[in-house]
């Protein structure tokens, strides 16, 4: 590796190195009650990607030494050894703890055993309590309390580690909880930072790697503490409801709603919670700016939120609030929609077509002449539109028709082929 290996965290506060990082930071990944989906999401991220961080390819970031079970070189004791060193304080480099999956209440198990395990008893630091028989699996929850105080930052990725998620849902028998609940309200990292939360089930991978990059730049002293909200979420990612940037929000505005899965309209009435859920997936996309639940046609079930899943269940049933807000939207949105359709009647027409009273398309049976009512509507509309400015409607009326319009007819070239490939697909202008 080209990077120098010496830890540089905490030195040179305030961008003294011109935004350049030369440090090394270890990242310890701990999977509790996890499905590994957050790891999979993270591997899908591109800004930055995991491999770029690990290979130290990004100038403004320290090189990341990643300890992740799914990506590691070593297995068994060789893999767990750095965890032990970090817990003992002998790692010799700063580290960030990332927790994926909720944390089971297995500290309360009377008998031996664990719901989530990592390493065996002989791997456990002798300086710490909670030693277990040398050959028994260790509890992941032990590693988490052992690593949290010395970590430069502790990051919870995904809705399980942030709020509890499905393993903490009603009826669970593992007593699972999120990282904030486990570490307590007073927890601060070695660098004074409370738990950072990047929710989502699974989260957008780029939300996580971007937040981690921001955090690393802060820990390196080349950027201020990122803007986290009152629940420790990256505020710039989670401050808006997903509905505000939803491509279907315009349907809501016009009061048109999907009735069955697969319909293109707003999904609120088939169970979308988007108007009250904080998430950015529809603008950011799920991977490489593509996808997003409602972009594809799926209803939001609140998977970034505390209380998921129970507070959003049953899925694909309209939220009660939507009856009121949706009802109102249907009334005023219906009016707005009609007004817009009226405006659109003079849209889709070149001024030249109005002058020629002819629409030169072979795809539809468009009326050349406009309805008198439409003409009157358009007249007053344009009057308002151009008031205090230049009246292009009037100017266009004076514009002569080009002489070479309909050139093939003028030249006498045979150009109408009597092969009907369109058939019923020829539409009348009104339908367009």
């Amino acid at each position, binding site marked *: 590796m080209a990077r120098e290996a010496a830890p540089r965290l905490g030195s040179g506060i305030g961008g003294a190195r011109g935004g350049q990082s030369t440090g090394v930071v270890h990242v310890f990944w701990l999977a509790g009650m996890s499905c590994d989906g957050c790891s999979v999401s993270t591997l899908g991220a591109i800004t930055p990607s995991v491999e770029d961080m690990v290979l130290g390819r990004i100038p403004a970031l320290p090189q990341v030494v990643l300890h992740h079970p*799914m990506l*590691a070189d070593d297995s068994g004791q060789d893999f767990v050894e750095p965890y032990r060193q970090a817990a003992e304080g002998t790692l010799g480099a700063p580290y960030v703890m990332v927790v994926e999956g909720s944390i089971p209440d297995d500290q309360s198990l009377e008998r031996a055993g664990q719901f*989530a395990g*990592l390493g065996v008893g002989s791997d456990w630091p002798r300086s710490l309590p909670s030693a277990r028989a040398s050959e028994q*699996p260790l509890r992941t929850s032990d590693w988490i309390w052992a690593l949290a105080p010395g970590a430069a930052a502790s990051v919870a990725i995904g809705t399980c580690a942030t709020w509890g998620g499905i393993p903490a849902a009603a009826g669970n028998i593992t007593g699972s909880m999120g990282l904030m609940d486990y570490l307590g309200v007073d927890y601060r990292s070695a660098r004074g930072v409370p738990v950072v939360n990047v929710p989502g089930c699974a989260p957008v991978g780029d939300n996580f790697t971007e937040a981690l990059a921001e955090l690393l730049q802060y820990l390196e002293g080349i950027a201020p503490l990122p803007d986290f909200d009152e629940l420790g979420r990256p505020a710039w990612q989670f401050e808006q409801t997903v509905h505000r940037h939803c491509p279907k929000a315009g349907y809501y505005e016009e009061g048109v709603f999907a009735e069955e899965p697969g319909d293109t309209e707003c999904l609120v009435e088939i169970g979308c919670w988007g108007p009250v859920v904080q998430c950015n997936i529809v603008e950011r996309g*799920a*991977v490489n700016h593509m996808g*997003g639940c409602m972009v*594809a046609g799926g209803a939001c079930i609140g998977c970034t939120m505390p209380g998921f899943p129970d507070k959003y269940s049953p899925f694909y049933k309209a939220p009660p609030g939507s009856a009121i807000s949706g009802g109102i939207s249907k009334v005023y949105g219906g009016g707005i929609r009609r007004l817009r359709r009226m405006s659109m009647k003079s849209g889709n027409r070149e001024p030249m077509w109005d002058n020629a009273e002819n629409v030169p398309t072979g795809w539809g049976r468009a009326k050349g002449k406009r309805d008198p009512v439409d003409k009157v509507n358009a007249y007053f509309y344009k009057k308002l539109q151009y008031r205090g400015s230049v009246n292009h409607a009037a100017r266009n009326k004076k514009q002569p028709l080009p002489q070479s319009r309909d050139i093939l007819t003028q030249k006498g070239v045979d150009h109408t082929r009597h092969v009907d490939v369109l058939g019923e697909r020829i539409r009348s202008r009104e339908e367009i």
Partner: protein
Amino acid sequence: MSAVPTTGARRVDFNPVTRVAGALSFQTAVDIEGGQVLDAHALATLFRGYEVILEGRDPRDAIFVSSRACGVCGGVHSTASALALEMAFGVQPPPMGIVGRNLMVAVEDLYDRPTHLFTRVGPDYSEPVVRETNPELWERALQTPAPGRATHGFALIADIMTAMTRFSGKLYTEALGMSRRAREAYVLLGGKYPHPQTIVPGGLSAHINASDLQLMFFRVAEFFDYSQKVVAVWDDIVDFFFEADPRFREVGRGRANFIDLGLWDDPFAYDGTFEAASSWAERRWSTPGAIVDGRVRTSDARRINTGVEEFVGHSFYEDWGSGRAGGSGNGAGPNRLSARHPSNKETIPQPGEADPSRKYSWSTAARWDREPMETGAYARLWATAIADKVPHRSFIEPTGHSLRLAIPQGALPATEIEWRIPERWGALERNRAQAYALAFSALVAYENQVIALDLLRRGGPDAGVSTHYKVPKDGRQATGLWGGNRGYLSHHVTLDGQVIQSYQIVGPSTFNMSPRDDSGKPGPCEAAVIGTPLLSTANRERCIDVLRTIRSFDPCMTCATH
């Protein structure tokens, strides 16, 4: 401990086994000097209680809750759950809904196979690892031209090994890139990955237009060249090891027992009913199969389902007695399934000390006809090749002993590749088959693309994506018979009064990574580890051949225990 050290034996713990999905640990007794593994126990070290959490819920929650059992096979559980609910509700999706789901599973495989082949097993055959454990093989690789050079571009076997290096290797980073391309295709219909947001009972909640299909097609088309390349790479690596030392055929040796329920439904055959399951499942792009010692015992999905049992003698669960067998008041009526069948099972966790002579894993021991069975992307190839029943033969041609795959032209010319059933089954052959499975999935994606475009262009009811359903009030029992990217996957649901009474999941690794069953038979991976020779000539303590064996099973522990 049962693994009492004999002469030369020492205990080696692999906790965790890394570069697999989920929490897996192996406890072994190894004779390092003698180069033998004497005993092995597979420990699943994670339990979250999904089956218990699903009990007492609205059935409409089942898809999105059960999907979250696994984020590595992050889409397949949704569909398995949808199939179970469709059977329970009596609802049949329109053809486009079925084709859309086929596309999603196929492109999910295009993300999953490369990830497995190059980020999980690949590094075990990479330059740093081979140089450390078998320096003489590295020397040989430097002298050995790669036969597949025209396809993959690497001149020497050593060049392939260098490219497989973790993080810095070209094949490693290319696999990450290709897995992202496949996900881009996935989220066009799924919204996100893992845990798609568009799979519903009765089809899909996705609007499919020409842009979606074209965007997806351009990405799928990249996998024609890529899968040729991946196959050539793995053919070269596998053949190199076998030629260098035939004993590599013994690493991870398996019995050739396979179970698979088939994958990718015929859009004009699937009707969601249990009564017709044998016929619609047989029309899948990959054929269901239960294979014992290399011979097909049945290709009937219903018979495969009937033979499945789960044992908990060595698992951290209490025995549930007779459960629902015989119909004990769940409203679904009596069933004639074994009391050990997942539909009759209850999940009663019993955490405790890991003791190989008693209980040591959170995974149950799943068996078929009381036999340990392997499953995986390669089980698809086996079952489809031998049964020779696939009705969709535009690009796929089983022969009874092989599977021929016609790959369309990309930058590379069109070609036909052929996966042949190997005489001996082991770790390297599993990896080779995974590479061919990538090509298989790309071709299934392509053919379903063509069908989807055709449905879209023709319009009408067949182009619809979902069918309206109502949650029935009476008791229902149903099974989602499906395949994960890693093979066999079934969801078993019992409903009554519009509430889930029982929900059970059997994932691929519930078979592969199972502990001993009640009769003491080791699980398939345990058995394969026990037989494995240690062929390292240097740093044998690393037990690389044990790890190669375990990883070749493509373990996914979050599917195995939920």
